[in-house]
């Protein structure tokens, strides 16, 4: 199976070019034609004063390379500087460096991995990273990974703990910025809150079938493998309010570390107080099963992709008096949007990218919601049926299946 992560430099390439292309903003959106046409269309007289903003134009990113995988890539992360991590439906987590060299393949799960995230470890050495992965095998795992430019000297990755709570496949996992807690969401409507400390003993007893399978596998792997078995870890708390599949859960940004945001197939976006394990706010949409959620850089609004081909922006500060919360902005897509990533730096706080099932990645500006600022096909025309399953945007990185 071919997979196509494309890598693009955004700011640098534009600034390095001599003429800096800009986009002009009128009161109603991006100016796409001449100013006279725009004025004629809007019915603005020539004598009136126009307030026009500009922002640096975003060139369609050039695809630098594709990273082939054997199966579908479900999640991608470029939070570690210099490396990409991909989670694949064959159960492996792969690490690449910027020269698209496959550094490591970590067989974490024996079922499709649905989501990965990096647990920030400020105290640990820079080569060592903690990765949390969620899988269809009803568990999430925390894996220690040592990434060095020279793959030969790297120590083998070690799965430290498996998180046991859910009774249905997990859909997403995310860690807070300080790296103390991990959230998992699952198809059974539960959100698990876990701390990242690795227990010394199993907190959850092995059940029979699991044990049998474990034993069998270990026997297969041979006795010579002395890798310690991952500790079975129980959740610190369970957030229970969704009535259907929870598709995404994220922590708030750095200053709101105790707040979690989740969206689900029950057409709700919920705000959680993680410490007190209560749902503090519920945003209800009408028949919009949400697939992905992202927080704006300011943390005041949430962007949620739903299966009705829209990405909706919701104001998190709005009270929940009415039954159905109106969305602030709605970005209409021609296909199901599957993933959202917002710009990490504050200079482009209105911008976001979305990936959709038609294989097109779109860059949007929230001030101009009529159409995307730019869009580009993730890969060449012959692979029509491919879908973008995950995008990440950290200083210019995007991946897809």
């Amino acid at each position, binding site marked *: 199976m071919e997979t196509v992560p494309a890598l693009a430099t955004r700011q640098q390439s534009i600034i390095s070019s001599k003429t800096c292309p800009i986009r002009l903003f009128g009161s109603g959106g991006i100016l796409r034609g001449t100013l006279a046409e725009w004025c004629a269309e809007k019915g603005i007289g020539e004598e009136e004063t126009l307030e026009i903003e500009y922002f640096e134009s975003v060139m369609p990113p050039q695809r630098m390379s594709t990273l082939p995988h054997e199966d579908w890539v479900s999640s991608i992360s470029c939070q570690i500087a210099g490396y990409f991590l991909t989670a694949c439906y064959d159960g492996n987590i792969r690490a690449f460096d910027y020269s698209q060299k496959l550094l490591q393949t970590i067989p974490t799960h024996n079922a499709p991995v649905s989501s990965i995230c990096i647990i920030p470890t400020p105290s640990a050495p820079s080569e060592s990273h903690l990765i949390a992965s969620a899988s269809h095998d009803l568990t999430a795992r925390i894996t220690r990974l040592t990434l060095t430019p020279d793959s030969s000297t790297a120590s083998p990755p070690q799965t430290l703990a498996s998180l046991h709570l859910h009774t249905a496949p997990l859909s997403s996992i995310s860690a807070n910025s300080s790296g103390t807690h991990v959230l998992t969401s699952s198809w059974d409507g539960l959100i698990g809150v876990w701390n990242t400390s690795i227990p010394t003993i199993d907190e959850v007893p092995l059940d029979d079938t699991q044990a049998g399978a474990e034993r069998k596998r270990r026997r297969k792997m041979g006795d010579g493998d002395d890798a310690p078995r991952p500790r079975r870890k129980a959740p610190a708390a369970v957030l229970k309010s969704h009535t259907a599949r929870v598709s995404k859960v994220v922590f708030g940004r750095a200053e709101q570390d105790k707040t979690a945001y989740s969206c689900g197939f029950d057409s709700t976006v919920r705000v959680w107080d993680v410490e007190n394990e209560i749902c503090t706010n519920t945003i209800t949409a009408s028949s919009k099963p949400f697939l992905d959620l992202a927080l704006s850089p300011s943390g005041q609004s949430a962007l949620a992709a739903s*299966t009705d081909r829209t990405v909706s922006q919701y104001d998190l500060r709005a009270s929940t008096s009415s039954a159905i919360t109106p969305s602030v902005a709605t970005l209409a897509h021609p296909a*199901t949007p599957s993933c959202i990533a917002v710009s990490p730096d504050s200079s482009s706080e209105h911008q976001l990218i979305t990936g959709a099932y038609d294989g097109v990645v779109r860059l949007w500006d929230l001030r101009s919601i009529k159409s995307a600022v730019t869009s580009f096909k993730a890969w060449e025309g012959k692979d029509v049926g491919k879908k973008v399953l995950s995008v990440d945007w950290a200083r210019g990185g995007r991946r897809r299946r």
Partner: protein
Amino acid sequence: MAATDAKKQTKKRKAAPEDESPLPSAIPQNVGLEMLSDDEGTDGEDGSDGEVDEFPEIDVRSDTEDEDEVDEEGEDSDEDEEEQEEEDDEDESEEDTDDDLHIFPRARTIVSNITGQPKRVYPPIEPDYDSDSSTEDSPNRVGNIPMHWYDDLPHVGYDINGKKVLRPARGDELDKFLETVEDPSSWTTAFDKKAQMDKPLTPQELDIIRRLQENEIPDAQYNPYEPTVEWFTGKGKEEVMPLSAAPEPKRRWVPSKWEKQKVMKIVRAIRQGRILPSKPKTASTQLQFYSVWNEEPSNQPAPLPAPKPRLPTHAESYNPPEEYLPTEEERKQWEETDKEDRERDFLPQKYSALRLVPAYSQFIQERFSRQLDLYLAPRIQRVKLRIDPDSLIPKLPSPNSLRPFPVYRALQAAHEGHRVRSASVSPDGAWVVSGDESGVVRLWEVIVGKEVKRWTFKGKVGAVEWCPRTDVNFFVVGVEEHLHFLIPPNLSAATLTATQSLLSPATLPPQPATPSPIKWVSVSAAASSSDAPILTVNLPSSSGLPKQLVWHRKGDYLATVSSNETQGGVWMHQLSRRHSQAPFKKIKGSVQLVLFHPSKPHFFVATQRYVRLYNLAEQKLLKTLSPGIRWISSMDVHPSGDHLIVGGYDRKLCWFDLELSDKPYKILRYHSRALRSVHFHPTFPLFASSSDDGSIQIFHARVYNDLMTNPLIVPLKILRGHQVKDGLGVLAVRWVLRQPWLVSAGADGAVAVWCS
């Protein structure tokens, strides 16, 4: 002599002031003289007496200031009358001897009281039947006008002198009534319009009324039985020269045989009863009186007036202005053109005077064409149907108000080039299992479309169905002559254990008394994996492909329909007892589909043309539904259990209200090719139908709880996107539980998920 006599008599009748005078003259010659003379005589006497007595009184009363002369003259006239009567008597006595003829009554010469000169006095002319001054005595001279013009005025008209005739005092109704009681003659009075008062009828008038009542001739002086005047017979009156010398023919004095025959014919008819001599008077022969105004005014439009002829213009004038006169070219052109092509059928011509205008030569032609116009003119007003065509369309809610429903294809999973016969969605709505004709069964996520597991069997996969139970998780795959029970991977431990213990229990249930030809083979729970079927049910050999698998709602019973109908393809399998049985010994027709009722122990069986509803508990036939479809292809029951939709290969989809009738409540014919699959959404008010035309149609179907309201069916959306391959389109549609999403499997090897 005789002629003069008759003449004289008529003259006399004319001139005679009294009516009885001529009748006595006829007495000697009349046969029934006594009767006549008696009647007439008394009447005449009464009449004459009344007349004579009354006249002076009226005169005195009305004109008190009149001159004496009038009185005298009146007296004179009275005397004259008496005298004349005497004369008449004399006439009667004298009979034919009266020889002098008078047109007028004889004048008498008397000496005037005033002048002393002798003067001739004629008897006054009495108003009579043939007198033209019959209204002379009326003081009111307004003439024959509607008298209500004077209703509001104090007078009723003017007399001959132009003076107002005042309205006589009239009593009220009570007075009238009292009058009828007190005055014996009041019933012979009549209201005189001119005088605006009641006048007693004269004896003559009363006599006329009486005669009219008795069907006699109203004129008393007319004698219908006047004596025959013998002009040519009698002594001395014979014709000297007869008109013809021929002897009188025999037929004059021999009775006519022909007449006798005619009469005898009538007599015979009367005897035989063919002619009723006196028809009994029936109600219909009597006059029917009815009130004209009681009838309802007819709502028929008034008959159309004939089209009006065109009005003449200046050009038709005999002396038109110069500009209307044709020029030479116009005249020539008019003459050259054919008659029916001419703009007008005449040429304007100028005459200086009307008397110079010749007769119109085209008159007959014009009248004729006008008659033709009238004859051919439409006289029936064609009532145009003024119906707004939009009003005929039933009022259906807008599809936008019925959201959510699937509108677009979110993703597609391919079975490379093999027909996908069936697909099934797991009861939690997360997984889809689809099986194609090459024996591949794929398990994939609904919303991502990623295949997570694949099984390959030998032969075609006819049906896959997920068990509806939520505590266990497995699905059944029907391949040729086998049912395979498969457990999906990545189950929680509790579910997996429950599923394994259900499908391969440690202690097998006791074998039923009657052995079944169907064998249940399972692997032990420990050895089982998700890679291979944990349980296999071997259907009887040569039963063919199980084309349908249906679970009961509780997940214990499973019914299968095999394609080979000769063996009786319906089998019912019970998981808890690991036992299969054929529910029907014999079924008329080949079974196409079966269905479990969602709430009652009922069982739908669809043969080619009929759907039969059986009660499994009582083992009897409840109903036979006849959809009118030639070959039923698909069927589904509403989650409430009261409604059934049936799709057919002849493009029809029938909606049955099971409470209502055995006939379809609605027949939808929206597909252009055969229907392949229909499915109700378990929770949303939606159903979908798929067809060989490659389209899926989504309907809103709201069912109301009260029995009075009919279900509301609104077509919502046609989903296109599947390719038609080998004449086959979309073979199966299934709804995703809890979401308005649809999974469709097509003959082009694609399984698509349609999202709202």
